[in-house]
């Protein structure tokens, strides 16, 4: 067994997992455990992990919890995610579902939204294919770990033709416990033909916690289904998050994603989109605002598998202090996928000499008739714009703050729900080094 896998495998032997005893689940978990034992965690030799070392995770030592510590109450949950927003809320504390502080606006009839431990019994046939999916190799070790341990999370199913107007808010909160905790929540989401949903995923926690969340989400969008997904990560200063989302889109399905990172110490996102049938489309928006010693890595991959699919991707970042950002955006246009339209960009502002961004757009094209573009920029604030603002009486610091804020606002302004947009605009100010915008929002 590889050393880095050892503590996790030992944990696995002791863990009493919900759903144990179902042969399909036991089998899937054992296979996942074996994959981790064989390959270990990703290391410097894994191309996709070379900028994001997971040594801190190995060094720290995390325990695995069977139940939520119960330190979070309803008011605390309100404060962590969009207070006042009319929504249906599902709360997790340290990866454990908190039914007692979940609920809210009613969902339409026929919509399933159950904690994973309940769903194991009631929806085994639907879940099995997702758990049977294998994740070989050290690069996918965290997804395999999730399959081995995931006995909590959510199963969501929206039937054909049902358009859910109420946003579904999934709050993944972390609270402080005696030991550092690692959790492996699983989210499985299926939208039927022509169904639609707005999903807001929030990662936040108590300021002092040092937990690690290893979330795996699997999403299936049937023909013509539409998902708008906002993920906001505003975690504690020493929090770790490993987050992978796999999406599978059928004909004319569409996915609009907003990935916003403000907090956390070590954060890794893998967003994989398979455009499996004609007319499928995705629009990926991202924003990371980093400072201190934060490290945030966004790996995205879009597979154009058939003709006439479309993807766009636009990620922006602001890096201050000693922070480090990684952007790797891969677009693969497969053989025969003519008529593909793919545009990608990554723009970064470096506010400090010690901040660093590693950006790599990757385009692999195996078809002839395609329209593809990509580009990455790394820069400082525009000197002419700074001088213009100062020449009207604005402080240098205020002018910097205002221009940086404007750079970020462009992403946030695309969000449709007013309460969400305003809250995030406020959060942005707290994360930006600026006096002016904090004083007066205009």
């Amino acid at each position, binding site marked *: 067994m590889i050393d880095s896998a050892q503590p996790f495998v030992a944990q696995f032997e002791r863990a009493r997992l919900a759903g144990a005893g179902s042969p399909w689940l036991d089998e899937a978990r054992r296979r996942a455990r074996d994959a981790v034992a064989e390959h270990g965690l990703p290391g410097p030799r894994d191309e996709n992990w070379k900028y994001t070392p997971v040594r801190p995770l190995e060094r720290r030592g995390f325990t695995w919890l069977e139940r939520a510590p119960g330190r979070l109450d309803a008011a605390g949950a309100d404060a962590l995610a969009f207070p006042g927003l009319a929504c249906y809320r599902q709360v997790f504390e340290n990866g454990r579902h908190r039914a007692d502080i979940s609920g809210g606006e009613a969902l339409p009839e026929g919509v399933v939204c159950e904690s994973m431990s309940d769903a194991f019994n009631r929806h085994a046939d639907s879940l099995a294919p997702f758990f049977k999916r294998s994740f070989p190799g050290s690069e996918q070790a965290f997804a395999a770990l999730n399959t081995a341990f995931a006995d909590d999370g959510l199963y969501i199913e929206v039937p054909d033709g049902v358009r859910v107007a109420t946003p579904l808010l999934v709050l993944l909160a972390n609270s402080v416990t005696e030991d550092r905790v690692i959790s492996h929540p699983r989210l499985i989401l299926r939208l039927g033909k022509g169904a639609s949903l707005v999903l807001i995923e929030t990662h936040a926690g108590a300021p002092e916690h040092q937990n690690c969340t290893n979330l795996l989400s699997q999403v299936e969008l049937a023909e013509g289904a539409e998902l708008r997904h906002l993920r906001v990560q505003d975690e504690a200063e020493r929090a770790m998050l490993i987050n992978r989302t796999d999406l599978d889109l059928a004909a004319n399905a569409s996915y609009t994603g907003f990935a916003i990172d403000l907090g956390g110490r070590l954060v890794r996102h893998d967003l994989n989109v398979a455009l499996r049938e004609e007319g499928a489309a995705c629009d990926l928006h991202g924003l990371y605002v980093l400072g201190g010693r934060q490290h945030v890595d966004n790996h995205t991959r879009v597979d154009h598998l058939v003709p006439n699919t479309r993807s766009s991707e636009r990620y922006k970042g602001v890096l201050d202090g000693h922070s480090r950002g990684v952007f790797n955006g891969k677009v693969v246009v497969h053989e025969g996928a003519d008529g593909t339209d793919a545009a990608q960009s990554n723009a970064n502002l470096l506010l400090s000499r010690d901040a660093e961004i590693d950006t790599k757009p990757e385009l692999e094209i195996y078809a002839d008739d395609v329209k593809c573009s990509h580009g990455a920029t790394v820069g400082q604030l*525009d*000197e*002419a*714009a700074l*001088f*213009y*603002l*100062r*020449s*009207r*009486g*604005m*402080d*240098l610091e*205020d*002018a910097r703050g*205002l*221009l940086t*804020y*404007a*750079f970020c*606002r*462009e992403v946030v302004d695309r969000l449709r729900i007013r309460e969400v947009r305003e809250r995030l605009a406020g959060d942005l100010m707290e994360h930006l080094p600026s006096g*002016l915008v904090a004083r*007066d929002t*205009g």
Partner: protein
Amino acid sequence: MLEIKDLHARVEGKDILNGIDLAVGDGEVHAIMGPNGSGKSTLANVLAGRDRFEVTRGSVTYDGENLLDMAPEERARAGVFLAFQYPVEIPGVNNTYFLKAALNAVRRHRGEPEVDAMDFMKLVREKLKVVHMDEDLLKRAINEGFSGGEKKRNEIFQMAVLEPRLAILDETDSGLDIDALKLVADGVNRLRDGKRSFLIVTHYPRLLQYVEPDRVHVLRHGRFVAEGDKDLAYELERRGYGWLDEKEAAAS
């Protein structure tokens, strides 16, 4: 109010200004004319404090203070205003918001109370009339998608709101058709109150038909080569800048 003595400046290692002397009194309008590359815009930018221009010699006193020691924002708050030759587009920063922040920065400096949103809008509507500008432009980002004429008018509008002591117009007339030029000139004339001073940098004498200067200075190779009253501008209009070469040649 403004006294420039033996001013030398360079940009990217190249000498542009080679000894400028100029005194501007309260309420005076001075025109700085000259062909392309003579250093007109450099002079305007040096006075506003753009740091890519390096002052190598000389002094600039503004109301008894060393202007060159002040940061651009300090100059602005003390009443120096530059109307840009190429106003910058700043996506994501709302025009109204920006102007209110700027006005309040100036007011704080003067020891005046900050204006609230309501008083500000009242002031804005009044000043918009000066330049005949559409209020809708203010709802947009700074200069974003503005036409050339709209950008220039926005500069004059900002000037009207900020009420500077010394207004420097850097080729505000270039690229304007005659109607836009008249609007700009009208805006400037309305702001002439006997105390506010103007430095009008221009290539063409056209604007000076509508804004009558007290003095005209002609800049060439970073030096003033001719000075006079408004008639000098008409002389240049008739005879072009080449006439100065002949004059210079005859003098030597």
